[in-house]
């Protein structure tokens, strides 16, 4: 998958007031900038996600700041309290200016 492609997983349905898990995996090399290329001895430049924001119906739920210490192709799990049907959106960016978004729907039953 291309760098920045993400998978966002939420339950399709939830009860009102239920706390659901929001899980995501994003394709990214997450180079910390401290590793050396074993062949050339040159530092591999940093290339990692810096920030991920979680929205529900365009209201900001959580902000996650991260560095190169998070594993390649980062997995993140966090919770969300669902009071109404709506759209979960994650928006994330890396240190080279890449910016992506991903959405998923939850309906209250």
């Amino acid at each position, binding site marked *: 998958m291309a760098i920045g492609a993400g998978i966002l997983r939420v339950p399709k349905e939830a009860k009102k007031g239920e706390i659901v898990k929001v899980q995501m995996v994003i394709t990214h090399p997450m180079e910390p900038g401290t590793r050396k290329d074993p062949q050339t001895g040159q530092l591999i430049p940093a290339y990692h996600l810096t920030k991920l924001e979680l929205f529900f119906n365009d209201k900001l739920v959580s902000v996650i700041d991260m560095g190169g*210490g998070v594993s390649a192709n980062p997995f993140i799990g*966090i919770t969300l309290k669902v009071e109404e049907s709506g759209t979960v959106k994650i928006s994330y960016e890396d240190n080279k200016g890449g910016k992506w978004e991903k959405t998923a729907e939850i309906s209250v039953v």
Partner: protein
Amino acid sequence: MDRRRFLLLSALGIAGLTFVPGIFRPSFASSKLEEDIQKRLGVSLSQIKESADVKLQAPTIAESGANVPVSVESDIPVEKVDSLWIFVDNNPSPWIADVKFTPMNGKVYFATRIKMGQTSNVRAILKLKDGSFLMAAKEVKVTVGGCG
């Protein structure tokens, strides 16, 4: 930095620490970690209390340091919690990630996978809205490092 200079500097660093009373602690605390915590949290590590209210889950032994699953949970109501930090003591850069919570999260929960260069303590530090800090730490043994 070459090996010789690194050894000299670290020797100097350790010597310096032993001569300043009160700063030196025989525990796992490394100065890089303390620097990072001071910079990002604005308090020193010694001011942060360990608490059983923060539940940190991590493997006791990790096969690969490149991918260590870590999750943090707490029964403290999310309304009282401001944010969460994750640190690894012995990594080249100890700071891993931080999370800002809002009441819309419903509860305090965060899971991710982290890199670890070597066997080290993993720390989760919660900041409460009243300004206090709570910490949980767990040692993870790493057989193959994931930072180089």
